[in-house]
């Protein structure tokens, strides 16, 4: 049996040996990171966490020291100014925390922080994955707090709620208040009126009835004035824009019922329908609240995603490179931008050349080549090459603008079916208004006393709320379900497309495999010093952020490199002591390889002479095989930039029928485009910088939580816990979600068509109409909620 990590539940490689004592028992761990975290938890007396938790923790970071170094930038004054609210000696900050999986995580973080002297208040919000912390700034620094959280395996970043998120929050509270008021009042009014309804034997005298009417009027008034206020303003906005929306017939029905009820009560003569009125408002508010809170939650989570936007930059001072805050950069300072990183500020290139993706600024996807002397803009992504930039403008504004733009885009991308329903409901509402007006006129001829109630019944019964709820309720339940499984959906409409996917492309490095290369062998050409070769390679790779570079990070890399450049998917080159070195694939090095080092996959060469070959191996992820077994699509393709032999081995071991090796980012893009031209709906799973373009091109793109910023910014679905098996869950949910939407729309339409003749012919009194309307909405919501299971 395979042993699994006690902390994160990943399978432990048999050769590893990390243990610590928890609850007096020896427990095994998958990596030094997890082991250290568990030790920290136990040493702080917080081992109860392992009792309380309902989910396993995320795999801990291994290079803790580097992490703690970067945290120091958060003690900078400018960050304190922006994120921290200071009152006397108490500071308060909002943090977004990644790695929170269950309520026990909240408990653990609160307890862990409570141990620090100087902490005054900690509140962890598990569903939003945030914390608000108040501390005494004389005793404690922000970086200490962050590193304390880091020690138990969570990653915290300071965070400023966006303006519109703050307003979302306000609205959410207002909704709750309106809903609560309407609910409580509905209960009271219903209680009174049920008595009147079921008074079949006439025991309630006229005076008591009148008294009940007055009380009902008194209780209904706040509901009409306060709880329903949202409907008036929405209908008014629509009318002013010369359109009709769902709220117009609602407002009409509400005001007609209320006003006639007031007249009936004052004159002590006629029908009142206060209980129907309250219930109508209450049920409408429930459906609106559901939709709003789903969007509020989505906005919170997507705002948390902003933490992935780099707020730090690599400042170059002499030969030293220190991470600093992008905000603190000043004009004339030098900044190093590695390939795959976002340019932190506007500036001029003074060394190196690169290919920049300025899509965020210009909307054009084509890469722009830039070399020294040219201007680069904050927010563009350096796809290729390493740049040294001289800052020309400090950050202020530019980055923030672009981030809010990006987020607004995400919010605006409404599901297609939903917008169809919106358009449809426009005509629907118009038709309802026309029908109710004409039946009012006709009923005036037949029976004037009934005309008003028939009209109100039509307005209420045909209220298209069920139709409006059909899509958002199903989508939000599906999103919530996925979220609870550790899958983050950046666009809800991706779900719709997933159900149509018939062509899946997979990246190899970092996706199917762990993406962590380890140096398995180093074979040098006779006459070459192995150690020297390793040193050269390590020095070259220190400028690259490709996964391959990490395999060399343990080797001393003190050699000075100039003219460094990297070609995505091929290799890196640069000058050391004036000699030109190339490190990369066979085609990149461009030399004949002797037989004995042919098995290697990375080669070091200088001036047309091969020096050394490195064998780097990459472990296949545990979930890969399972995922491929579960995805049942006709076309499955492995796209990799790696050499054919390696790709073939992985493809064979995972039973993938089609594979393409040595694919450049452009090649991958073409393959996917070709499939799309053949009317396939393409799902791409990738993680790296080189997958960025193809992820953007694919109809649905999936990436892992540990991917590069670029992949995350173009992906629709993020598997937060890096387990590929979750893709099949996404497929299953998408299919169910689509079925639910169709069922819901069918039901809503069918109900409205059925009830209309009944209402027009006067068979339906207003209270029956309310019950019918709310039943149809409730059925839709209940149907959607089944998606949560």
């Amino acid at each position, binding site marked *: 049996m395979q042993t699994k990590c006690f902390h994160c539940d990943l399978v432990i490689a048999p050769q590893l040996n990390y243990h610590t004592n928890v609850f007096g028992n020896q427990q095994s761990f998958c990596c030094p990171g997890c082991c250290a975290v568990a030790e920290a938890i136990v040493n702080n*007396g*917080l081992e*109860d966490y392992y009792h*309380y938790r309902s989910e396993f923790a995320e795999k801990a970071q291994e290079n803790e020291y580097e992490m703690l170094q970067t945290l120091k930038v958060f003690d900078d004054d400018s960050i304190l100014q922006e994120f921290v609210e200071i009152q006397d000696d108490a500071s308060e900050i909002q943090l977004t925390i990644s790695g929170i999986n269950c*309520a*026990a995580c*909240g*408990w653990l973080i609160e*307890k862990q922080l*409570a*141990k620090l*002297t100087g*902490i005054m208040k900690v509140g*962890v*919000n*598990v*569903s*939003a994955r945030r914390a608000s912390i108040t501390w005494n700034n004389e005793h404690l620094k922000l970086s200490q707090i962050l590193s304390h959280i880091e020690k138990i395996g969570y990653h915290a970043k300071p965070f400023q709620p966006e303006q519109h998120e703050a307003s979302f929050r306000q609205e959410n*509270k207002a909704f*709750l*208040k309106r809903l*609560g*008021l309407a609910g*409580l*009042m509905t209960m*009271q009014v219903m209680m*009174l009126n049920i008595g009147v309804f079921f008074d079949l034997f006439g025991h309630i005298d006229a005076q*008591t009835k009148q*008294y009940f009417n007055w*009380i009902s009027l*008194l*209780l209904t008034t706040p509901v009409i004035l306060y709880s329903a206020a949202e409907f008036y303003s929405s209908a008014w906005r629509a009318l002013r824009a010369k359109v009709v929306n769902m709220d117009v017939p609602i407002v009409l029905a509400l005001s007609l019922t209320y006003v006639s009820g007031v007249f009936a009560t004052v004159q002590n003569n006629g029908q009142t329908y206060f209980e129907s009125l309250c219930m109508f408002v209450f049920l409408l508010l429930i459906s609106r609240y559901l939709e709003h809170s789903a969007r509020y939650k989505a906005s919170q989570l997507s705002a948390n995603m902003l933490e992935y936007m780099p707020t730090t930059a690599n400042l170059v001072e002499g030969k030293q490179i220190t991470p600093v805050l992008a905000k603190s950069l000043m004009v004339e300072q030098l900044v190093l931008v590695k390939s795959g990183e976002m340019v932190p500020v506007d500036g001029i290139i003074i060394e190196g050349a690169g290919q920049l993706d300025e899509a965020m600024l210009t909307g054009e996807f084509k890469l722009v080549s830039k070399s020294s002397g040219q201007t680069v803009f904050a927010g563009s992504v350096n796809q290729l090459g390493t740049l040294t930039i001289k800052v020309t403008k400090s950050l202020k504004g530019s980055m923030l603008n672009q981030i809010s733009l990006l987020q607004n885009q995400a919010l605006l991308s409404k599901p297609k079916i939903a917008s169809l329903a919106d358009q449809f409901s426009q005509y629907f509402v118009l038709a309802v208004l026309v029908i109710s007006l004409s039946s009012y006129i006709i009923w005036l001829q037949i029976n004037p006393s009934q005309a008003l109630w028939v009209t109100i019944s039509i307005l209420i019964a045909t209220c298209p709320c069920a139709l409006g709820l059909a899509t958002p309720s199903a989508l939000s339940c599906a999103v919530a379900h996925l979220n609870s499984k550790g899958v983050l959906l950046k666009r809800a409409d991706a779900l719709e497309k997933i159900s149509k996917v018939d062509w899946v492309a997979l990246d190899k490095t970092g996706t199917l495999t762990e993406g962590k290369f380890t140096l398995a062998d180093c074979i040098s050409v006779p006459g070459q010093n192995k150690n020297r070769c390793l040193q050269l390679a390590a020095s070259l790779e220190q400028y690259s952020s490709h996964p391959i570079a990490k395999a060399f990070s343990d080797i001393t890399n003190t050699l000075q490199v100039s003219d460094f450049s990297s070609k995505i998917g091929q290799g890196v080159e640069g000058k050391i002591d004036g000699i030109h070195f190339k490190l990369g694939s066979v085609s990149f090095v461009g030399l004949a390889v002797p037989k004995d080092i042919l098995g290697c996959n990375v080669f070091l060469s200088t001036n047309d002479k091969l020096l050394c070959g490195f064998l780097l191996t990459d472990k296949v992820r545990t979930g890969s095989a399972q995922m491929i077994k579960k995805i049942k699509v006709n076309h499955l393709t492995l796209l990799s930039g790696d050499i054919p032999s390696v790709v073939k081995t992985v493809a064979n071991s995972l039973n993938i029928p089609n594979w393409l090796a040595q694919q450049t980012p452009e090649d991958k893009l073409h393959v996917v485009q070709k499939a799309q031209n053949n009317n396939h709906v393409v799902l791409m799973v990738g993680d790296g910088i080189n997958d960025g373009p193809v992820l953007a091109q694919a109809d649905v793109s999936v990436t892992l939580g540990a991917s590069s910023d670029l992949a995350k910014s173009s992906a629709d679905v993020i598997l937060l816990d890096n387990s590929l098996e979750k893709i099949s869950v996404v497929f299953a949910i998408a299919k169910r979600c689509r079925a639910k939407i169709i069922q819901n729309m069918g039901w809503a339409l069918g109900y409205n068509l059925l009830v209309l003749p009944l209402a027009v012919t006067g068979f339906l009194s207003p209270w029956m109409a309310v019950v019918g309307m709310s039943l149809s909405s409730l059925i839709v919501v209940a149907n959607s909620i089944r998606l949560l299971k």
Partner: protein
Amino acid sequence: MSIIYVLIPIAILLVCIAIGVFFWAVKSNQFEDLERHGSSILFDDDLPKKANNQNTKTPGKHD
């Protein structure tokens, strides 16, 4: 039956108090995170063993 002329106003008064409490709860962020506080009652506040050097623990609660 005349008792209802007294009882109903009292009921309304109670409802008003309930609404007041509910509004206060919404205002003080008690509905922000239903997941965490739903289960926090299950988690012990005590930190066993090293109990002496803590300043943020609830007094007098031991199993």
